[in-house]
C-alpha cells in the first residue's frame, strides 16, 4: 500500500518536500475523478515542477515498478485519472506556463498543466483562435485534453483537440525524452507519435510540452434556435444543412426531456411540448454568415420547424445558448447521480439513436435526457439515478451496456470525446475486436515493459 521510504525521499529530492504528498487525506483527495466509479487511493501524489523532474520521477517509478497516473484537473468522465493502489498520481498543474505564443507562425507551445480556457483567452487576446472547447474547459488542462482527445461544441466545423496538435514532447516509461512533430504545417519526419499520443490516456508517456496550431478567428457569427415537433424533422434539418454545403460552427440538439429539465431549472421560455430543439450557429466572413444564416433559416422552415428564433444581437445570442449551457446543470439537479455518456453515431443515424435511447429509458425505467452535438453525431444521453440504490444501479449498468450496443449497431462508436479509461475498457472488444486490442497490448508492452504507465486503462490489464 505504501512506497518505500527511500523512494519517497528520492521523489522529495526531485520535486521538493511540498511536491510529494503522502498523508491519508491528500492521497484520498486524488483517488477519484468525475466518472461515477469507485475511488482507488494512490500511495503518493507527486507534483513535479520541471520537465527534467518528470523524467526522473518516471525513471524511478519504472525501476521500482510503481504505477504512474497523470492528472491535470481530474475532470475525466471515464475513470482515466483514477490511480492504481500502489501507484502514484503525477499532478501536472505546477507546470502551467505558456512557453511561446507565436503570432507569425500561428502556434503556441505550452506546458501540459495550462488550463484550456486560460490558453484560449490568451490566444484570443493576441487576435488568434484556439477552437477546441470541451465542456470542462474552465478547469481542464491541455495535457488532459490531448491525452483524451477532448472534443466540444465546435467539433463539427473546427474539429477536436487532435486537429490542433502539431508536436509533442513526452517522457516514455523509461524516463527518456521523446519528441515528435514540428512547428511547421507540414512534417513527415518519423512516425506520427503525436497522433499516437493523442487519446493515449497516459498509457504511453507523460507530456512535458505540447505545440498547438492556432487559426484566425471568424469575423462574424449568427445564432438561432429552431423548434421541432419531431426528432426526425430536426435531424433531417441537420442532414439538409450539411447537404447544402453549409458547415455551422455549432449544431446542438436538445430532446424533450432535456427541454423540460432546462425550463424547470431556469425558466428561459422554452416550448415544453417541443420534441426537439436545434441550436445553430454559423460563423465566418460577415457576408457569408449573412447568406448561410438565411439559408439555414429557410432549411429549418422547409423541414418543418414550427418556430425559429434568430438572435439579432449579442444579448439574444447569449439567450439562445443559455438553454444549451444550462442542460447539464438542469439534469444534474433532478437526481443525485448523473451518468453522462458520449456514444456517437454517424449523424444520419441520430433519429435511430434518440429512438433507441428512449426505448432503453423505458425498458430499464431510468430517466434519460439526451442533448449534444447533432452536427457530429455525438449525443450525450444522460442517465439520472442514485448510485446508492443497488437495484437501480444494476439497471443503469445494463442500460449503459445496451446503449453501447445500440450505438455500435448503428455504425457508431463507444466514445466520442470522453475516452475509454476504466469505464468502457470492457466494451472495447465489441467495437474493435480482440485482434485490435491484442495489437495495442503488444505495442504497450514493448513501450512500457513494466506496465507502469496508467495500467489497466483503455486496453485492460
Amino acid at each position, binding site marked *: 500500500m505504501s512506497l518505500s521510504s527511500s523512494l519517497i525521499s528520492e521523489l522529495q529530492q526531485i520535486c521538493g518536500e511540498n511536491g510529494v504528498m503522502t498523508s491519508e487525506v491528500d492521497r484520498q*483527495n*486524488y483517488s477519484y475523478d468525475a466518472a461515477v466509479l469507485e475511488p482507488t487511493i494512490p500511495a503518493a501524489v507527486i507534483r513535479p515542477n520541471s520537465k527534467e523532474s518528470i523524467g526522473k520521477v518516471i525513471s524511478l517509478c519504472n525501476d521500482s515498478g510503481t504505477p504512474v497516473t497523470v492528472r491535470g484537473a481530474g475532470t475525466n468522465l471515464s475513470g482515466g485519472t483514477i490511480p492504481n493502489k500502489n501507484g502514484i498520481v503525477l499532478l501536472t498543474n505546477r507546470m502551467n506556463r505558456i512557453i511561446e505564443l507565436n503570432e507569425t507562425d500561428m502556434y503556441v507551445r505550452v506546458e501540459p498543466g495550462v488550463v484550456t480556457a486560460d490558453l484560449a483567452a490568451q490566444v484570443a487576446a493576441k487576435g488568434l483562435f484556439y477552437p477546441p472547447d470541451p465542456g470542462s474547459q474552465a478547469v481542464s488542462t491541455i495535457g488532459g485534453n490531448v491525452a483524451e482527445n477532448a472534443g466540444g461544441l465546435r467539433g463539427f466545423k473546427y474539429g477536436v483537440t487532435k486537429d490542433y496538435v502539431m508536436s509533442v514532447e513526452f517522457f516514455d516509461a523509461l524516463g527518456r525524452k521523446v519528441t515528435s512533430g514540428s512547428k511547421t504545417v507540414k512534417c513527415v519526419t518519423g512516425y506520427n507519435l503525436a497522433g499516437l499520443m493523442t487519446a493515449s490516456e497516459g498509457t504511453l508517456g507523460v507530456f512535458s510540452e505540447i505545440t498547438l496550431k492556432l487559426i484566425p478567428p471568424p469575423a462574424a457569427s449568427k445564432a438561432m434556435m429552431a423548434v421541432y415537433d419531431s426528432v426526425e424533422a430536426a435531424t433531417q434539418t441537420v442532414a439538409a444543412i450539411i447537404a447544402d454545403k453549409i458547415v455551422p460552427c455549432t449544431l446542438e440538439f436538445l430532446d424533450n426531456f432535456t427541454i423540460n429539465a432546462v425550463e424547470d431549472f431556469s425558466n428561459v421560455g422554452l416550448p415544453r411540448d417541443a420534441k426537439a430543439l436545434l441550436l445553430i450557429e454559423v460563423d465566418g466572413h460577415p457576408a457569408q454568415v449573412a447568406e448561410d444564416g438565411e439559408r439555414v433559416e429557410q432549411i429549418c422552415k422547409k423541414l418543418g420547424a414550427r418556430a425559429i428564433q434568430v438572435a439579432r444581437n449579442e444579448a439574444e445570442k447569449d439567450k439562445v445558448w443559455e438553454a444549451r449551457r444550462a442542460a447539464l446543470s438542469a439534469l444534474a439537479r433532478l437526481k443525485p447521480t448523473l451518468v453522462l455518456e458520449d456514444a456517437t453515431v454517424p449523424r444520419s443515424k441520430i433519429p435511430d439513436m434518440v429512438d433507441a435511447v428512449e426505448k432503453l429509458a423505458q425498458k430499464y425505467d431510468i430517466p434519460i435526457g439526451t442533448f449534444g452535438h447533432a452536427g457530429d453525431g455525438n449525443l450525450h444521453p444522460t442517465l439520472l439515478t442514485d448510485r446508492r440504490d443497488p437495484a437501480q444501479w444494476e439497471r443503469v449498468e445494463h442500460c449503459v451496456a445496451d446503449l453501447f450496443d445500440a450505438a455500435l449497431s448503428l455504425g457508431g462508436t463507444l466514445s466520442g470525446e470522453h475516452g475509454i479509461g476504466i469505464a468502457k475498457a470492457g466494451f472495447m472488444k465489441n467495437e474493435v475486436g480482440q485482434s485490435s486490442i491484442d495489437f495495442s497490448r503488444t505495442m504497450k508492452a514493448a513501450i512500457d515493459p513494466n506496465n507502469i504507465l496508467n495500467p489497466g486503462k483503455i486496453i485492460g490489464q
Partner: protein
Amino acid sequence: MSELNKLAKSLKEIENQLTDCMKCGMCQAVCPVFKQTGDEGDVARGKIFLLERLAEEMLTDAKGAKTRIEKCLMCGTCAANCPSGVKILEIFLKARAALTEYIGLSPVKKLIFRGMLKHPERMDALVETASRFQNLGTSKAEPNQGTRCSKLLSGIIGNRHFLPLARTPFHKTVPALNIPAGRSGLKVAFFPGCVTDKMNPEIGEAVLKVFKHHGVGVFMPKGQACCGIPALASGERNTFDTLLAHNAALFAKEQFDYLITPCATCTATIKEIWPMMAEKDSIEKCRAKQWAPKTMDISQFLVDVLQVAPAQKSDAGSESIEFAGDTVTYHDPCHLAKSLKVKSQPRDLIRANAGCTFVEMAGADVCCGNGGSFNLQNYDLSKQIGMEKRQNILTSGARTVATSCPACMMQIRDVLSQNHDRVKVRHVIEIYADTIKC
C-alpha cells in the same frame, strides 16, 4: 473505530446533500484558495469527498480532514457557480460542527468563543478595556490608512496592519433606539454588527443619518450580541445557539418592517444561516424564518425599497464633501454578491453621490481573501489573495474603494496599508451619507 462511527453518524444529516456533488470539478475554476495552491483538498469537490469518506467510515484521519475542511474562505463562490447546485456552505457549516464536536475546539477558540463572544456584556467590557491600552503594544503603521501594527503581538497577529479599536464604540454613543416611522412610513430593526460597533462606529452613524434623512423609524435594542457566524464557522454550535437566542429575544420585542445591517456577512447570516442552523422546532427557528425575508443589506433597502437612484450628473459635486471629485470603485463582498445576489444596489448607492465618479475594477466580485477565521489561521494565503485584490483596486485608478462589509474593509485596508497605498477604504453608506446635510 467506534468513535469514528459516532462522527459518521452525525455526518448522516448531510449525506443526501453530499451525494448531490457529481465531482465534475468545476469549482476549481472559481475557488480563490485553489487558485493559489492548486491543491484538490482546497477545493469544494475535494472537501466534499473527504466528508463522504468520513460518513462511510472509509477515512480514519478525521483531524486531517478537519484541517482541510477549515481551510476555506466560506466565500460561497463555488456554490454560486456549482452546476449541480450543491448546498456547499450548508454542508461545510454542518460538517464543521460535527467535526468540532468530535475533535473539540482549540483552547484559544474555546476562550474566545465560550469565554468572550458568548457573553456580549463581558465582550464589550473586555474590548473597551483593550481599547484604552491598545496604544501600549502597538505602533502607527501607515498614517494614510490610520492603521497600526504590533511587534509585541506579532507571534499572534503577524505583521497585520489594522485599525485601532474605536475610542468610543457605537453602542456607547447610541446604546438603544426606538424611533417611530417617519415620512417613509417604515420602521426598521437595526443590527450594526461587531466590526461596525467596535472598530468602525462611523458606519453605524452614517446609517442612522440616512435613516433620519429618509424618515425611517429605527428599533435598535440595547445589548446586541455577535450574529454568531465566527463561532459557527469554527463548528462551535453551542455558542452560536446562545448568541442567536440572545439576539432573537431582543428583536422579538418590537414590530418592524425590515431588519437592516451594514455588514454583508451579518446580513447573509441572519437571512440564511439563522433559519438554516437554528435548532429544529425552536422559537428561534420560527423567528428567524419570519425575519429572513425582511432582512436586507442597507444598500438593498435604500435602492429597492426607498428607491434611491443614481444622481443626475447636472448637480455634480454640489452635495458631496469628502468625496467631491473622487473616483470610487466597489468591491463585492462574497456574502452579498454570491450568497444574496446583491450586486447592483451598492453601485447605485455610490452613483447616488453625484460628486464622485464610479469606476468598475477588474475582478470586483473576487473574494478579498479575508474569510474571518481563515485570515487568522492562514494569514499568508489570505494575504496572497488580498494582494490580487489590491492590484485590481490600483489598476482601476480609483482614489476610494468602497464595499459593503466591514470585514472586507479590514482585509483591504491591511493589504493597502502594507504597501503604503493612499487609496481610501470606505463603506458605501459613508459615500451616500456624505451627500446628506444633517
